[in-house]
């Protein structure tokens, strides 16, 4: 279960001035989060559903004695749900000293992306939430969407979304 260590090791060789990102796949897209934010990567485990929670809040898991909430990134990004398979992983990240898990389709690599090649978020059509995208990087012709984890999984943001959903449910 030490994929992260392996990844970090393999990336260590290719050290450069750029920052390192853990990349993962949701659907057809590549996403990246700063490696320093990632605590560990674990395989799919038993998730205990918490009643009356937002849809993307899949529940809580036992991470070696700590109760950690996990969020399904597909649901969070309003993408269609998909069954979990052997590639599905939970990336445990630390947001403001709190651990939280992200369920993603699969984890791919740790890559170096130099600051210079990271572009600012282009202006998409209004349909796409750009707040939590830090920028867009390029690795070997692949597009990597770099997420601002502090924003996307901030407590206030999650609370707001949960509130909205529960209000929607009441109607």
């Amino acid at each position, binding site marked *: 279960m030490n994929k992260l260590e392996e990844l970090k090791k393999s990336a260590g060789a290719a050290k450069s001035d750029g920052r390192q990102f853990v990349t993962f796949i949701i659907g057809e897209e590549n996403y990246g989060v700063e490696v320093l934010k990632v605590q560990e990567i674990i395989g799919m485990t038993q998730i*205990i559903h918490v*009643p009356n*929670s937002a849809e993307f*809040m899949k529940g809580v898991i*036992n991470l070696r004695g700590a*109760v950690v*909430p996990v969020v399904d990134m597909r649901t969070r990004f309003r993408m269609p749900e998909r069954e979990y398979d052997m590639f599905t992983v939970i990336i445990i990240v630390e947001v403001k000293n709190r651990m939280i898990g992200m369920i993603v389709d699969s984890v791919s690599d740790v890559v170096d992306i130099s600051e210079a090649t990271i572009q600012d978020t282009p202006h998409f059509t209004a349909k796409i939430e750009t707040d939590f995208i830090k920028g867009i990087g390029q690795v070997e012709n692949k597009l990597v969407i770099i997420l601002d984890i502090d924003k996307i999984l901030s407590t206030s943001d999650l609370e707001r979304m949960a509130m909205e959903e529960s209000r929607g449910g009441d109607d």
Partner: protein
Amino acid sequence: MSENTIRDVFLEEAREILRHLEADLIQLEDGDDPELINRIFRYVHTIKGSSGIAGFDVVYEFTHKLETLLDMVRNGKIPVEKKLVDLLLESMDWIATGIYEEPDFDRMEALLDRTGKYHAAGGGAVSASEEEDAPAKNGPSEDKNFFFLVRASFRPMVFQSGIDPLIIMEDLTALGSVEQKRVNLKRLPELEELDPERCYLDWTVLLKTKHPRSKLDDVFIFVKDDNDITVEDITAEFVDDEKYNTMLQERKLGEILLKRGIITEEELDDVLSSQDESNRKLGDLIVEKGYADEKSIKYALGEQSRIKSRIQTTTVRVDTRKLDSLLNLLGEIVISQSSISRISEELEEQHGFRLKNALYAMDRITREFQEQIMAIRMIPIGPTFEQFRRFVRDAAADMKKEIRLDIRGAETELDKTVIEQISDPLKHMLRNAIDHGIEPPDEREKAGKKRTGTVTLNAYHQEGNIYIEIIDDGQGIDRAAIKRKGLERGLIKPGDELTDKQIHDLLFLPGFSTAENVGELSGRGVGMDVVKTNIEALRGSVEIFSEERRGSTIRIKLPLTLAIIEGMLVRVGTNVYIIPLLSIVESLQPARDHVKTVEGKGEVMLVRGEYVPLVRLYEHFGIKSDVTNPWESLVVVVESGSDRLGIMIDDLVGQQQIVIKSLENYITQSRALSGAAILGDGKVALIIDVHGMVGDLAR
């Protein structure tokens, strides 16, 4: 050590020192006990030294000036008076802000100005006694004590060289004060073998002196070559809190007086022997015999109790996060243990049996381990109570009232999390007691009470709970005024017959008493709803008792510990939930005709002649269950305050101790879930909060 760690250590240390300092300064108001002044001086001195090392230069400069002032106080050049204590307290506050926030330079100037005036006043007095002080200046360093451990072992034939070791030892002790001494008699032979021309004795002396090491070496200058003399500088061991930390042990009154040189050994023996006959208090006897005055006895008794309380509170100092992680680690051990236990089930009988036996033994140990860790989390409430002394003093002065704070049950132990969270509500209630409870001195006198009001903080254990009381001997709660206010607000109806308790409960309603209402007379209830919420969050409750003109008591009831509870595991479909055992009244299978619906929606069931609302947990949580008919299921009857509730479940799984882990607010909107716990098999189970569930239903 990196710079950051030095800083961290200093910050931690300073926090502790400032707390002691505050307590001592408040005590200083009661009289100028020289030991107390010395200790205050040492605290400031330590802060000065460490702040310099940690790079807080402004604080260093400031404390340096303060130290000079305190030195004058110590030498009796400046009298101890309220004005001085005020200045010192404010200076202490400044130091705290200077260290933990940004130094406020304007305030510093103002304080230094006042300090300077005192300096001048002290300086004026100096001229008279200057001569006396003059020699001291060239000799020992002004404010620093050295501690030397001297071991002197003289060779047996030392007398033949015309040297008397005793005279040398006397010379040595003349340099300072002997803190500890021991004469080694091991080499001393039987009397018939004793050769009077030989030296058989060794000395070990702990000397406290203002002189540098060279002075001590001078004493031994003629003997050090052919005798075994070692002088060791152990000042570093004493530098923190000087002798107090190292010599911290419970001491008898007589010893304290002896140590302070107030009475002599013979006098003490005399008093002790007459005490045996008369069975009276030592202090009284000493005063009666004229060996010491009452003041000295009082101070010595003060020190005695301070030493006692220090022994109780300063034995362990561990970062609380370490304790938490220890507990988490233990939780992991328990979980791994249960997975091994599962493997043991799969093994063939012979091996499985042996493994199981080993696991039972291990289980016992881990349980005990857990209890011990929980015990470490318990800390006495005393320091929390003590920190209010300053608050009460200042608040009373602000309102021109005379108030004494009485602290009882300081040794009562609570979970550290509870202590951290109870502090604010307590302060709030103290403020209420001072503001609205205790009358102004003149009014008290008219009512035939003492001018000085008393507010008591009391803590005690009872039946697995902890009670904290805030008692005042003030005017009590004006129930008529509360009733009027309740009517005004439409909270009660004119015809309502209310018990005292029901009237008091009005005070806990949000916004019941704001500035313009119940008024000076008895405006209790400012933010009492917040207090109540805070205490309920700790799974506690709060009650008010009051007697007009006699005073009020607010009683808080809290569970012994927050982190661990006895829980009942219940199953609904494939989900396991935990209901705190303390909330459970009973569990039963209702008869078919005992379940009724109300307005076609709400369900109630008959429990011992009383209808209680029935909650189908599977419906409430939106999950699947095995059974949907209440009469086929089990119903757990729970209680929160005076509300009862039947929770419908599939089955009871068992009872076990669980460690509560909090759930972040955003995870669920349901108030019916208060946390989660990890079960023996590593699964997470959610904990049902009965109080919150009642609230959910009322929504």
